[in-house]
């Protein structure tokens, strides 16, 4: 069958050579004769949009902008936009340059760009895929880096509990080496981010404050949800896969009938896409005017899928061209029973009524077509205007294509995002939620089950880590052995307070210096260290996205027809600026004022001493000073 189709196609090519060219406004504006003639050829092949000429014009315009010839560049960009129909890039370039020149047109152009983005399945899908991937990566990365910073922050705590257990038994290697040894062991195992995340959660959970726990749980839940829904990413795979059935079929929305496209689509043999394939082939043949063959394919399509409205429309078109208006009518009406809101069906129906001299019905249908936005169709399919068409053909709607992508995605063996993230996680991403949930449960259990004596907390004076084993609670406050040593044997609360405060200032000063160095490792670290967990995670996420976009030179999934890849300087400047800004904010982040209460020891102790003091001063009246009665006088 395929060979026959190709034969038909070739003969059709000969036919095309003798076709008359109709008036085609914008195409006449193309200066280059070769590109113009290429465009006419494309139009004759029934392309809905002139993507390649548009791209050439677009590229010329970008060169002109670089040379500073804005006015002619602007005209070329407008033309490129007109020719392509649903290619949004020319509008974005227009808007950007107009913005730089304070031209108020930038806003409408920007909006139009976004409208095209919303209508263009391929661009939409690419943006969606990129967005999904960057969100996933940012979520995992933020979780990992936040955990790393939390571990750094609470490292003294973790180390203290290791020391407490370890140094009781062994003297060599020294307890201070333990941290380094653990680090080397973990890094040299290279077990992947997923397991590192697990280890970090388990080791840091007990030390975390409630707010930090809440944020951490939030992040874990988010990543788990992403992981749980990761199999959905398979729907995105056919979109970014240039050879997938979905992508091949979607090409009939972008290109005219040519050998290669015909071969690509006829090569789809999987019966799952049979209806769509036959519809596509029928449409391609219809574009060339090979009506009988087109009709066979379209009929085959509607037999396979009785609810496929576009096939009925194009089938109607074939009958219309064959002047079999009753059948054409039936085709359009079938389409309308399936999808009553289809503007194209209404429009073509109206045209058929005209042919049948049923003017009342015709005007009814045409009005309805107008209401439903037939003009939108004309702007998104600019090439159809270059030919004087009475009826319009349907392509694949965005919904059809998403549906196809979904069906095709399900046939994928692996999980798309798991494959992309695999080398980093070294763990199937779509099972990561199990790992995370289990880890969290274990962590919470450890947190609850750990007896208070083994929990590590801050010395209430100097913030150094202490645990139930080594803390000194004698004075009503938990003090580390060093702080307790400073006030050992003293009885005056005032003296003890003064000594403790002195020690606190000394320790905190030296600690702040060390912390500063440690937290400048990554942007956001300072914030996490100071307990500003939201700001911290924000900066980590922002710089992660920036780094990713730098590494990928833009987006991970690229559009092969996109020019943007050719290196706008902003692709470099913006991420670098984000990273620099994040670092700067981290660097300039001031140590918060010590908000802790001035008094360290409990109020009651002070009260007792105060009373004692008052009593004494009362009972020693000035008159009976000892020297006045002393016998030396």
């Amino acid at each position, binding site marked *: 069958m395929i060979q026959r189709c190709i034969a038909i196609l070739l003969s059709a090519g000969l036919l095309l050579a003798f076709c008359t060219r109709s008036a085609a406004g914008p195409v006449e504006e193309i200066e*280059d004769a*070769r*590109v113009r003639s*290429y*465009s006419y050829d494309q139009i004759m092949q029934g392309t809905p949009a002139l993507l*390649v000429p548009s791209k*050439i014009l677009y*590229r010329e315009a970008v060169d002109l902008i670089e040379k500073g010839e804005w006015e002619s560049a602007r005209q070329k960009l407008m033309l490129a936009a007109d020719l392509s129909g649903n290619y949004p890039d020319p509008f974005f370039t227009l808007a950007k340059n107009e913005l730089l020149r304070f031209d108020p047109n930038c806003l409408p152009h920007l909006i139009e760009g976004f409208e095209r983005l919303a209508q263009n399945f391929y661009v939409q899908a690419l943006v969606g895929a990129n967005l999904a991937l960057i969100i996933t990566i940012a979520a995992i990365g933020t979780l990992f880096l936040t955990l790393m910073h939390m571990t750094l922050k609470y490292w003294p705590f973790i180390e203290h509990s290791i020391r407490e257990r370890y140094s009781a*038994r*062994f*003297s*060599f*290697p020294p307890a201070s080496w333990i941290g380094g*040894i653990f680090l*080397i*062991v*973990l890094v*040299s*195992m*290279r*077990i*992947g981010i997923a397991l590192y995340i697990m280890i970090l959660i388990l080791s840091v959970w007990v030390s975390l404050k409630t707010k930090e726990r809440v944020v951490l749980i939030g992040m874990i839940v988010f990543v788990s949800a992403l992981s749980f829904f990761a199999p959905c990413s398979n729907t995105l*795979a*056919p979109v*970014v*896969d*240039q*050879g*997938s*059935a979905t992508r091949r079929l979607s090409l009939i929305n972008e290109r005219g009938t040519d050998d290669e496209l015909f071969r690509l689509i006829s090569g*789809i043999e999987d019966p799952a896409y049979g209806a769509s394939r036959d519809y596509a082939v029928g449409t391609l043949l219809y574009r060339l005017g090979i009506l009988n063959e087109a009709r066979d394919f379209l009929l085959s399509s509607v037999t396979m899928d009785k609810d496929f409205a576009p096939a009925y429309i194009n089938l109607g078109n074939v009958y219309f061209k064959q002047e079999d208006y009753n059948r054409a009518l039936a085709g359009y009406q079938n389409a309308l029973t399936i999808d009553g809101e289809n503007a194209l069906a209404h429009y073509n129906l109206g045209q058929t009524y005209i042919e049948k001299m049923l003017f009342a019905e015709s005007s009814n249908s045409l009005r309805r077509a107008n209401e439903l936005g037939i003009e939108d169709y004309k702007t998104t399919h600019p090439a159809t205007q270059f030919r004087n068409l009475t009826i319009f053909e349907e392509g694949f709607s965005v919904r059809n294509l998403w549906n196809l992508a979904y069906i095709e995605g399900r*046939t*994928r063996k692996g999980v798309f995002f798991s*494959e*992309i993230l*695999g*080398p*980093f996680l*070294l763990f199937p991403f779509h099972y990561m939620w199990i790992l995370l949930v289990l880890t969290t449960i274990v962590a919470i259990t450890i947190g609850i089950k750990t007896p208070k004596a083994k929990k590590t907390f801050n010395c209430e004076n100097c913030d150094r880590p202490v645990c139930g084993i080594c803390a000194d609670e004698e004075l009503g406050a938990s003090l580390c052995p060093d702080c307790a040593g400073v006030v050992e*044997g003293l009885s*005056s609360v*005032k*003296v003890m307070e*003064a*000594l403790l*405060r*002195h020690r606190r200032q000394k320790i905190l000063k030296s600690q702040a210096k060390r912390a500063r160095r440690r937290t400048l490792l990554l942007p956001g670290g300072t914030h996490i260290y100071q307990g500003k967990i939201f700001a911290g995670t924000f900066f980590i996420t922002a710089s992660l996205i920036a780094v990713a976009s730098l590494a990928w030179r833009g987006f991970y999934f690229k559009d*092969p*027809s996109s020019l943007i*890849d*050719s*290196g706008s300087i902003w692709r470099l400047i913006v991420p670098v600026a984000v990273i620099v800004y994040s670092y700067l904010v981290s660097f300039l982040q001031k140590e918060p004022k010590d908000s802790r209460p001035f008094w360290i020891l409990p109020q009651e102790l002070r009260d007792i001493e105060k009373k004692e003091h008052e009593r*004494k001063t009362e009972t*020693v009246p000035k008159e009976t*000073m*000892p*020297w006045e009665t*002393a016998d*030396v*006088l």
Partner: protein
Amino acid sequence: MALEGNVKDFGLSEIFQLIALQKKSGMLSVTADETIAIYFRDGQIISTRDRRSQLRDPLKNYLANYGFLERSETERIERIQSETKMDLIDILIREKFFSEDELDVIYYDQIQETIQEILSWPKSYYKFNIGTQLLQGVQSRASIKVEGMLMESMRRIDELAELFRIFTSEKMAVKRLEMPQEKPPKLDRQEEFIYELLEQDTHIERLIETAKMARFCTYEALKNLLEKGLLEITEKPVEEKAVEIEPKAVVKKKHKPRLLPSFATILLLVAAFAVGEYLVPIVLPPGWCAASMGSPSGTTDQSGTLLADGLGELNLRYTEAVLKQGLEEHMASRGTYPISLEVLAAKKIILRRTLDEAQHQGLTYHTTENGLSYSLSRNQ
């Protein structure tokens, strides 16, 4: 207004009397080998301790020299002082070294001794600054009349010369005699205390250090005891006994194993390295190790499924699509397909990077002679 001069020209006691008579307030500093500041309020002595704590603190010396505080206590107080900037008196009371009453007596005695010391300096320079503002921050526990203080000081200076004739050296040793059974002589409080102390210590030096009274008072008590026949002087100063330094109790370290944990650590490191190097790559599916990231993996030939199975295949198809787009663009603008992919890169239709990628992925490009059709194939 300042009053100053050398003690030779004008006796220090006269200065004291002058200040007292005129009820002046201010600071009198007396300098010989060292400087001592004496504060007056309305003609009465209130302190001999420098309010800015720059000079030697006579009170601290008094406490340390006469056994009120042990050396470890002195050290601790000094540490507390340096860290908290609290006044010595404050610390003494708050830390309950002395009761307030005790401290009042000590304070008085200390001033007495300090004045006595100053007055006994043969040569000195004095300066009196008038003004109540100088008294700010002065911690005082007494207000002492100058007259009595001077009289007592003079008496002590006079008697001390006599005492030194009896007790020629501080290295001298004395011996306590038994209290007679009949008609025991009456002892005052100080004499009784020294008598008690003599039970253990026989060196005058040591007695002074522990007597908790001014040096003069110790000597005086000794003289009284001698007169009452309760003391005899062992002529020769006894040989200084080498103070036995107690050997510090060597804390016996528990013998903790060293070899085993070291060995375990090394084993752990080696094991971790082995896991990272060999085990992890074996466990993981092919193409997942970080080294092979991005390069094509699990390439399936095109005839298989339509959907790319591996990311490598996906990348390859992407490159193909870019090249085809570029070729089509070339066709549209030049009318033919280019002779080689190099042309596309040179005309900046595709990026040099894409071209490299295509070569890396093994894509080969051929064009027909007339340039109207081309083939893009994978050589694998």
